[in-house]
């Protein structure tokens, strides 16, 4: 039986990808970002997951407003590296596990989650920055992946509670899989940030740290947040945090925190949390 062995909440700030590609890991303002992923990399190496389910959003790479899905799931053999407007990042294409993706799609759709199923999907910073930071990937990635894309950019967005329920349904679907797969889930995006208006650059460190507390200990409290509340407090783009609730919904009961970090150098609160279920 497949099982979920861990969950990671992490920001997916695109400039991290650029800094990585330019080899700036040791520059003083960047070093705290790259260093804090090292214990998570080590933890993941020990966990030996077979599959990473990555909950992220497409920022206009493989999806556009002509037909923008609320929830989409990848079901491809391979996810090519997308071009977001500044060329393809030098990363290897990301392997999928289409049998497992279709299994998940079947369970989710029959369980009343109205997924868009994607057999062609290029992936972008929302997906790649977390993967990039958490896994060694030369010459190839050590896990197969299932991208799950959530609309957090064009309102109406799914509610925080709906995202949490999606996580619970993913857990059920994983456990209904007869293959012996070890699965980690990623919830990506956020934390506080705003990229429009005169409030561009808004940060809310207190909100972010409170979110990091509660994603561990009281996720149900977070499911009650409305988009309005998140936006007012933490910035219009902070709504991405609802994707962390999908990761958390896939973990059952009390969890053990493996790692946590927070850093807000520029315009986005960069959070990281790694969670395991109590044995």
């Amino acid at each position, binding site marked *: 039986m497949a099982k979920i062995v861990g969950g990671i909440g992490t920001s997916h700030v695109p400039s991290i990808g650029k800094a990585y590609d330019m080899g700036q890991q040791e520059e003083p303002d960047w070093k705290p970002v790259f260093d804090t992923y090292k214990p998570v990399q080590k933890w993941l190496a020990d966990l030996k997951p077979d599959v990473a389910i990555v909950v992220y959003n497409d920022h*206009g790479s493989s999806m556009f407003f002509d037909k923008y899905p609320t929830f989409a799931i990848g079901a491809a053999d391979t996810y090519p590296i997308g071009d977001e*407007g500044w060329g393809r990042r030098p990363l290897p294409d990301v392997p999928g596990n289409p049998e497992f993706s279709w299994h998940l799609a079947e369970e989710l759709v029959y369980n009343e989650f109205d997924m868009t199923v994607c057999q062609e999907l290029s992936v972008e910073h929302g997906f790649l920055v977390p993967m990039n930071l958490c896994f060694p990937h030369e010459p190839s990635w050590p896990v197969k992946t299932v991208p799950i894309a959530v609309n957090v950019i064009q309102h109406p*967005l799914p509610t925080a509670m709906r995202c949490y329920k999606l996580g619970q349904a993913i857990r059920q679907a994983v456990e209904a899989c007869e293959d012996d797969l070890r699965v980690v889930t990623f919830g990506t995006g956020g934390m506080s940030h705003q990229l429009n208006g005169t*409030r561009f650059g808004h940060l809310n460190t207190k909100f972010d740290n409170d979110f990091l507390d509660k994603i561990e200990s009281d996720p149900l409290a977070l499911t009650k947040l409305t*988009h309005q509340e998140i936006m007012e407090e933490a910035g219009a783009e902070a709504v991405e945090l609802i994707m962390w609730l999908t990761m958390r919904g896939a973990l059952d009961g009390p969890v053990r925190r493996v790692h946590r970090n927070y850093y807000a150098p520029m315009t986005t609160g960069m959070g990281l949390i790694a969670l395991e279920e109590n044995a």
Partner: protein
Amino acid sequence: MTAQRDKSRTIPGTTVFDGAESRKGYRINKFAMSFTKPENRAAFTANEETYMESWSLSEKERQFLRDRDYRGLIDECGGNIYMIMKLGTCTGHGLYHVGAQLRGQTFEEFMATRNASGAR
């Protein structure tokens, strides 16, 4: 069903990119989305006016593009920040340049407000 937005309660300095904005910005966002293809970036770089002609942009949109007036594109034309950012490779303007403009500051003024601006 909990109401997710209170439209009577606008958030200062903030645009919520919703259906109304997405309708308004459809043209300019589709134009900007075209920059995900290298051949389109090359075409824009080779001749901005010719490339703009091949899209049904309004004169206002074209003028904001000529002026690199991102604030106009976003606030007045419904531009979505993620789409507008795709113009960056061709215009040379990154997120913090755009952000400073949105705030009505110079790049340096904006940078001075950040905690660790080396992480840019």
